[in-house]
């Protein structure tokens, strides 16, 4: 695990750097905060309705599909690293796994889950 220590160290350093930059600019930047500064930007007029409303479900569909297929990728990684040792049998096993997922993928495609309009 000692290999990972530098990453942790860099993480800390990055947080410190980001914090320093933000802090410095809060200290140096001179907020005047006029009324127009503070109003939400909506092309120069007052917003018609608040932004925090329900939103179309399509974006969430993408997120759901992503989770499904990202798991596929996660399974592929360890398999890929030892693929040389597994040989043709490993390929067959993975082909079955991916094949099942592909059927699901085609189903989504046909049902229009990947379409936008």
């Amino acid at each position, binding site marked *: 695990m000692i290999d990972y220590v530098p990453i942790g160290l860099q993480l800390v350093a990055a947080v410190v750097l980001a914090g320093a930059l933000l802090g410095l600019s809060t200290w140096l930047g001179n907020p005047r905060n006029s009324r127009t500064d503070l109003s939400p930007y*909506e*092309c*120069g*007029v007052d*917003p*018609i*309705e608040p*932004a925090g*409303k*329900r*939103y*179309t*479900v*399509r*974006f969430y569909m993408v997120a759901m599909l992503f989770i499904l297929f990202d798991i596929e990728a996660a399974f592929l990684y360890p398999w890929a690293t030892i693929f040389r040792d597994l040989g043709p049998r490993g390929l067959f096993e993975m082909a079955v796994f991916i094949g099942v997922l592909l059927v699901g993928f085609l189903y989504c495609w046909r049902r229009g889950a990947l379409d*936008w*309009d």
Partner: protein
Amino acid sequence: MEGPYIAPDPPRFVVDRLNGRFPGSVLDVAEFRGEITVVVAKDALLDVTLFLRDDPETAFDMLTVVTGTHYLDRDYDYEVLYHLYSLPKNHRLRLKVRLREGDTVSSVTPVWPGANWPEREARASSGPSMRPVPAEGEDYLHGETMVVNMGPSHPSTHGVLRLVLTLDGEVVKAVQPHVGYLHRGMEKIAEGMTYNQFVPYTDRLDYLAPLSNNVGFILAVEKLLGITVPARAQVIRVMGCEIARISAHLLWLGTGALDLGAATVFFHTFRERETLYNIIEALTGTRMTTSYTRVGGLARDLPPGWTEQVRAFLGTFPAALDELDALLTRNTIWMKRTQGIGRISARDAIALGLTGPNLRGTGVAYDVRRTEPYSGYETYEFDVPVGATGDAYDRYLVRLEEMRQSVKILDQALRRLPDGPISVDDPKITLPKKERVLTSMEELIEQFMIVTEGIKGPVGEVYHAIEAPKGELGFYIKSEGDKSPYRLQIRSPSFINLQAIETMAVGGLLSDLIAVVASLDPVMGEVDR
């Protein structure tokens, strides 16, 4: 060419047909400078317009513009004017109804959907009421839709256009345009000015093509006065119009591409525009507010070396245009973003009153330079490019080709540029030379009269249209014999064209809306006036 204005024959048979079909409805007929005006009873308006549109002999398929005029000293208070045009027959008619205060008249939107905005404008500016009030959009404020303001302060609404969008995710469910942020009341201002004084105001209409607006307005005044300017002035005016067209189309191309993310095109077009602006500056002394035309001619003659300047531009510009062409025309992303986007059929386009490249993109070869030539356009050789499907890509191709045609016209104009005077020789219209003013009594008086009294037009009304870069730019002048118009109505192409935004954008994606606005090419200075 110089001399009196030669009027074409008006479609007099229309009056007979109307009399035959609607006896008693035609209250009055007037003819002036080849234009025919028919006053109809207000209750018959809807039937008459429907007949005029559908009758194959009259075939008035396009409503050009609606004007409301307010009178104080007549037995009626308002006149509502409908300027009609027939694409298949290429003739025009002015229809009038007269209203008392409190009267209402039917809206003609059922006949021409494009009457929507012009009628609203007439109502807002002059007071006559039309009913029924055009239906407001369906209420979409429910479910997962979101109402967003796009504009007036948005990077790609080309000025202060405000669109209230109802979005379902990325899909545009409704568009409600709001215009008027740039309203200056130009048409009202004109009523207190001499004709020459109003020329600077026209610079600020389509401020991307001021030279062309100058020409458009002054041609209407000259039609009213019944004069035609000398050949040299005509050729220079044509050159001004075509330079303005190239410059305006270049700006459209640059900003349109920028809206779709291709920023480089923008800078390349601006490099070319810079050359054009140098040419315009040499010609008029300013880059944007040109005010170059005067009643009866031009403000000044060409400066020395100007033709060489234009010739040099014509030498380099086609190559630069080819470069832009190569960047976009076959670019897959560009094609994906514009082909099939903002599609409108020729039928809908005509009904909405679209003109210019927006109409020609649908395949209708309507170009005022061809149908009702002015300033000698009939003697130039040029093509009127048309599209096929009426989508954003077609409008793009049409404008691109129009620039090439403008180069052709400029080239011909340079070759034929005659020597001679640049203004009509009429002491009541043209200012005398300054040396003469200072040495001769007569010229001093003439100068004094024109400057203080202005140029008095005859009693009458005229409508004159030119093919501006954005479409048919028309000026309706109602003169009561004074130095200023009694009523001026500007038929600005952008205003009418912008009506198509709902037809084009609803049902598409938000990104398509951007492509639609860009391809419609509205200029807010002209929309709001």
